């Protein structure tokens, strides 16, 4: 009880801090210096129609590399944590039958979902979306497969290989930017092309595809690890 009261008091105090922030907030009328630069320079410099993508993949590419690494790390550690608890092959009780609807539906939907995922990350520089979103869509396809067949065995090695190759290629492209263009993760190692075309924005589609593959692989690996845990 005392604990609740203390927590409540602290949360209210935080609320007071937040309230001050809220009260002092006034939306900008014009873009600030940084945002204005992006608005003006993205098209000529980066060649990406989606400015957010330009920021994510190029201007703040290091963040994104870090972000990919966060996912990689989480997937790896989830694998590590759950490694001890995996007793899959040995005498498991038969799974609950999943039903005709799910099985058939998944056979139909999974390829479409995968396709959508690929579409989303390949077009990341043109439309809302990108590697993370696309990767998540791909992984949702994997989730559907797992739901339809809980005993389905995913090759961890395959997932790991996709993940590794994509990640390594990402770093290599970053270093190529350093060697061939203006700096680490510079996308101008490939021609910028015409604004709005699929093959434009230099290395961005390539990077986003790699990110998509990698994120898809990582989510899938996490899902697979979690699904293979012993039921408690």
């Amino acid at each position, binding site marked *: 009880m005392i*604990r609740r009261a*203390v*927590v409540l008091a*602290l949360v209210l*105090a*935080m609320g007071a*801090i*937040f309230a*001050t*922030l809220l009260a*002092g*907030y*006034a939306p*900008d009328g014009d873009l*600030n*210096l*940084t*945002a204005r*630069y*992006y608005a003006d*320079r993205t098209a000529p*410099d980066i060649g990406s129609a989606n400015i957010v993508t330009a920021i994510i993949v*190029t*201007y*703040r*590419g*290091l*963040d994104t590399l*870090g*972000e990919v*690494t*966060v996912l*990689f*790390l*989480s997937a*790896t*550690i989830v*694998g*590590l*944590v759950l490694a001890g608890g995996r007793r899959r092959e040995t005498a498991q009780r038969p799974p609950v039958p999943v039903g005709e609807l799910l099985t058939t539906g998944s056979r139909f939907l999974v390829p479409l979902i995968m396709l959508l995922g690929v579409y989303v990350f390949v077009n990341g520089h043109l439309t809302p979306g990108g590697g993370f979103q696309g990767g998540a869509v791909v992984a949702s396809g994997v989730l559907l497969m797992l739901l339809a067949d809980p005993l389905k065995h995913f090759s961890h*090695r395959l997932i*790991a*290989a996709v*993940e*590794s190759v994509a*990640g*390594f290629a*990402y*770093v*290599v492209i*970053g*270093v190529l*930017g*350093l060697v061939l*263009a*203006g*700096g*680490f*993760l510079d996308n*101008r190692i490939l021609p910028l092309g015409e604004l709005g075309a699929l093959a434009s924005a230099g290395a961005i589609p390539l990077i986003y595809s790699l990110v998509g593959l990698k994120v898809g692989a990582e989510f899938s690996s996490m899902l697979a690890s979690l699904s293979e845990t012993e039921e408690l």
Partner: protein
Amino acid sequence: MVSAIFILAAALAAAFLLGLLKDEQRGVAYAITLLALAFMTWISADWTWAFAMDGAASVDIFTAGTEPPFAINLRVGLAEAVLTLIISLTALLSALAMKDALLALGRRAMAVLLVATLAFCGIVLTRDIFNLFVFFELAAISTGGLILLSDDERALAAGFKYLIVSQVISILLLIGIIFAYHATGTLNIDGMADAAQSILPGSRQAFMLAFFLMFMALVAELKPFPANGWALDIYESAHPAYSAIFSAAGGAAALYAVDKLLLVGGTAWLPAATGIGVVTFVGANLLALPQTNDRRLLGYSSVAQIGLILTVLGQRDVLGDLTGFVALGLLLAHSVAKAGLYWLSSLVAGRELSAWAALRGHPLMIFAFATFLCLLVGLPPFPGFYAKWELARVLAAEGRIALLALILFGALIEATYLFRWFGYTIKRDKPAEDIACASGNVIAICVAAVTGWVLGYLWGDAANVMLGRGNLLLALPLLFALAFLLLEWLPAWTKNMLAIAGLVGYFALTWGDYDPLRLIFFVIFLIGGAVILLASFHAHGRRVGFYPAAMLMYAGMTMLIEATDTFGFFAAWEILTVGSYFLILRGKHSEPHALSYLVFSLGGAFLILAGFALAASGAPLGVSPRLTFALSELAQVAQPLAPWVFLLLAIGFMTKTAAIGLHIWLPGAHAEAETDVSPMVSGILLKAGLFGLFILLMSMGKQQLYGIELTYVMLWIGAITALLGNLMAIFQEDAKRLLAYSSIGQMGYALFGLALMNHLGWLMALMFVINHYIYKSMLFLSVGGVAKRTGTRAMYQMGGLIALMPLSFIAVLIGIIAMSGVPPLSGFGGRWIFYNAILESEYRLPMVVIFLSGPIAFLYLFRLIHTIFLGQLKDEHRKLKEAPFWIVLPQMIYVVLLLAFAVVPGIALRRVDEYMNQFFPTGGLNWSGLNISSPYGYWDPIAIMIIVGCIFMTLFLWLLFVNRKAQKVKQFNIVFAAERPYRPETTHFAWNFFAPYRKALGFLVQPFVTQFWGAITDTLHTGADIARRFYTGNGQTYAIHLLGFVVAVYLFARGI
């Protein structure tokens, strides 16, 4: 030069590549990991070299081919290069140290280790606030993963607690970042700092709040006290090699992040950093006191050290250009030492502090352990020492005395628990299980120890170049002492010869440089030391550890004499303190006594440090704060600072001379030391304190505080010390303790003489310096020799040894005659000068006290001869032989010396007497031939010697004549017939010999002082023991602590 971005790229590429390997190819994966870490280390080392040696300017690394603030940029300067070096090197060595765990968990764990290293490096390199957040999250998540390396099951819960706190931290940080972005329009840290200058008043408050949230989030990563329970749990349960990374690399990275963020906040936030830092430093050190688990203790110490460095960062406004020197010095010392200690801890099987006794028998590991402790405590010649000195100097100059006091208090507590641990290691029973000497671990530890010394050299060099202080590691005496570390494989007698040759040789080379006063101390320190070392020839084997410690002490004393400025003096003071601590600790039962010696000595040293710092701040000459401050300039310290400086220095020096109230360390430390160590620490080391007092009084003279004459107070302290020291001595049963208490009394006399502040008083103090050296060394040696033969130090268990150990008997006889101040020996000369001095001064009451203590000294001295050498020989002692030759030899030298000094005291005193004319022109003695005269009479040593000799011979011959037919009493004197008493010694005549006096005067020797200090330590311990229950172990509570901490700082900051 390879771009620093490859530090990050290499780690990532390697981490991703590991995924391509088969799970079974763990050896390959491990090799790739090591290679990547080595590559990262090499890049950082390369940059460090470029900045440090070639003075290159810092380099900005742009990403995305766009300039900041529009794209993320990284920066490498000297600080960044050094920090990435320490991070990647720690990771590399830790990878070696936890080879087994990494191989057991496989490539995934290695990938996580690589990412953790990268994340810490990224935190250091990036100049973008959101990028900083990303790297922090990477660090947090990888910490969550690497905790699994531990074979301690509790680590899992610790990891979860950490993740909870990370969540709270990231919420604070993100909200802070987005509002700071809104207020400044940029995410670049430097851009934000620029924009913060020109924020409109309307959005100022929002920006300040946003900054507050970011600041608190990053500060929370520093594990501030008391919102740090989660970190302690990690330190305790993680794999020690990971704890090394977490402490060394993680701490360094988070501190640098806070440092960068403080750029944005500006000077307004420095007090907050200082406050949080110093509370953490003191609080964590206090709570570390009752810890018994080694890794948790190290955790507390880590937290404390980081707090100290945060304090330093918060003092940037006054430290100015020195901030880097001080902060980096402390940080590197902490990182190297903490990493080394964690690696050491993985060698030790038990988690109790005393389980570290397993290290005994591995001299290299003990050496590394001692190195790490000295690094942490900031003893010379390590970087922390230089940092401590500059910090104290600047803080005092700026009048931030309270902060300085808090820092020194915290440092003293830290030294206490660290060296207590060292004492356990050296003295406690060795556990059954030996240490696990994995090669990777040993390599890591050795690299850390060597790095510690290299850092010491580098910081000394920097101090020399920037501030004009000498590099301590270039000081010849210190190098000579350290050389013995490399000679440990030689047999003891070879080392002993080298040591004696070194002392005598150095004396011969340099003695011409000193004025007579310093020369007397110099002779006692070096030549006196060499004579006592003769006794060390009796030791067999290699005697590992003795010579480095002893020579360190002598080096310190030599440097003390050589010092001309306060820095050199203080450095020497600490060196001799450490050396003598290691030396005292060698005694069989000296563990608690060595500790109390060290604590008192360091406490005294800190007072001296504060005194010197304060003196430099108030000097009228030159610019304040002064860089160097000559000892002689102490005379120019102006009012109202002067009396305070005097007070601090006097108390500091009086801890070393064991003035009453500060004396409780002495009896144990001197009595429990080894046979040849007791005379060193009693005969020689005590004089260092007197030397300090001489220097102090010579330059500062009489000082008044609130109308009280401080020298008058000292006079009283001296008198009471003499009286009580002697009184306590008479009730001792232990011969060496008796001598130790007697030293307290003797130092009281010397203090009294000094405080008289007249010519003869000082002369008498000097006389005591010489006399006390000779007879106390001699007595400790002969009593030590007896104790060695009889196997006991209790006097009532001895008796009748006169025939078996005649030479020891002669030494003791001469010694007590000299000491009690009766004619004809030099003690009488001392007394004679003394009484002349008293007659000259106007203080009557303390005089009475000091007169009283004279006869008391006689009482205990009498016991030495009477109980040990006379009376009945004990049955079990019938076959005893004289003490070993090498222990007797120096005693005989002393006998000759005493006789010589008694006959011609002028050889030493005459020149000093003249020298003192510059301080006290009047009141000197007249030296005509061998005759010495004062206004009150004259003293002819030769005549006295002849007269006393005649009387003695007459009586002796008469006694022989009268007793020629005397029969010896046979020894069947059974005092108890039918019953064996419960405590046999109670029936011995010599036991509780002075019981009647005890009845009368016992109240004076009640251990009030011991009780007083005991009560203080108990209060601290119990207080800390109760306070630490605050860390309930519940992860949720820890998160509440963190939130409460944020709110408390917020309210506090608003209040200001």
